[in-house]
């Protein structure tokens, strides 16, 4: 408990976070890129074709991780927003700012690859059903958080406005998750469940698992790096950042 309390207080120091997160960011990035590469090549070239969908099912190894990450990223952003609103921690604001564009890209990947997958599988690029529509709403929530940060002139008010939208928007996450169970939809139910074995054979789900874990590591690496950028910009007039700039000049 004491260690947790110390960590909490240290999170109030941007400099401490910048220095501690640097190596973690690089490590997670490298691990993530390797995981993504292995998972995608495995899924593309080695996994057997689906008995019904043939080879188009291989889109899954890109689509599912991107979709999972677009949701996880939003949950993290919502939590950071709550921390900002409750404890006014500056670092939480930076996490919201850094996470939004990353999550938006994952969301775009999920939507576009889903549309491409839908064409040969469902016979249509797009349907306005519960799953696809709720993910489209998620993309607009990301855009909203990004736009609020840009549009509100005072930085502190911008951060609070974006945090409120990030927190309120989390209601979309359970809707996305359970949309395939609550409503009649073309979209198939979840591949991975915590409570049951995957509905696929191992030679199909193992590459997916590797790809998903790779996307997670990649996401945390990019997020830490982007939070580092936020710290540098906000602390640019401080002595330690000036020293850091000088040390890189030599």
């Amino acid at each position: 408990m004491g260690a947790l309390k110390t960590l909490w207080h240290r999170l109030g120091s941007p400099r401490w976070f910048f220095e501690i997160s640097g190596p973690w960011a690089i490590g997670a990035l490298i691990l993530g890129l390797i995981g993504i590469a292995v998972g995608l090549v495995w899924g593309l070239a080695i996994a057997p074709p689906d008995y019904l969908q043939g080879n188009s099912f291989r889109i899954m190894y890109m689509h599912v991780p991107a979709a999972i990450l677009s949701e996880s990223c939003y949950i993290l952003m919502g939590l950071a927003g709550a921390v900002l609103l409750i404890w006014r921690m500056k670092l939480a604001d930076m996490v919201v700012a850094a996470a939004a564009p990353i999550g938006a890209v994952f969301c775009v990947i999920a939507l576009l690859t889903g549309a491409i997958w839908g064409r040969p599988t469902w016979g249509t690029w797009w349907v306005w059903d519960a799953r696809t529509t709720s993910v489209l709403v998620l993309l607009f929530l990301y855009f909203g958080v990004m736009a609020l940060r840009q549009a509100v002139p005072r930085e502190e008010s911008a951060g609070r406005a974006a945090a409120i939208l990030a927190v309120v928007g989390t209601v979309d996450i359970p809707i996305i998750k359970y949309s395939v169970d609550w409503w009649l939809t073309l979209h198939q139910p979840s591949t991975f469940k915590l409570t049951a074995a995957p509905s696929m054979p191992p030679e199909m789900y193992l590459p997916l698992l590797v790809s998903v874990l790779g996307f997670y590591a990649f996401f945390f690496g990019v997020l830490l790096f982007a939070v580092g950028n936020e710290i540098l910009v906000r602390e640019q007039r401080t002595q330690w950042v000036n020293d850091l700039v000088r040390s890189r000049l030599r």
Partner: protein
Amino acid sequence: MNFANWHDFLYMGGHYLFVWSAYGIGVVGIVITLARPLRARRRFFADQAQRLRRQSLGAERADASRSS
């Protein structure tokens, strides 16, 4: 390996347009996600270095005009 040769791999049982365009979009997205913060970091250090150089140049000039 699931495919007998490169042609079969690229052809994807006729679904090549869908599979490869989906992977292309995903890879572009991953590259954008990675490149944006890396470029921002490089630009930040370039801008700050320039600012510090200008400042020290300004200080030198002030010193020179004071001593003359």
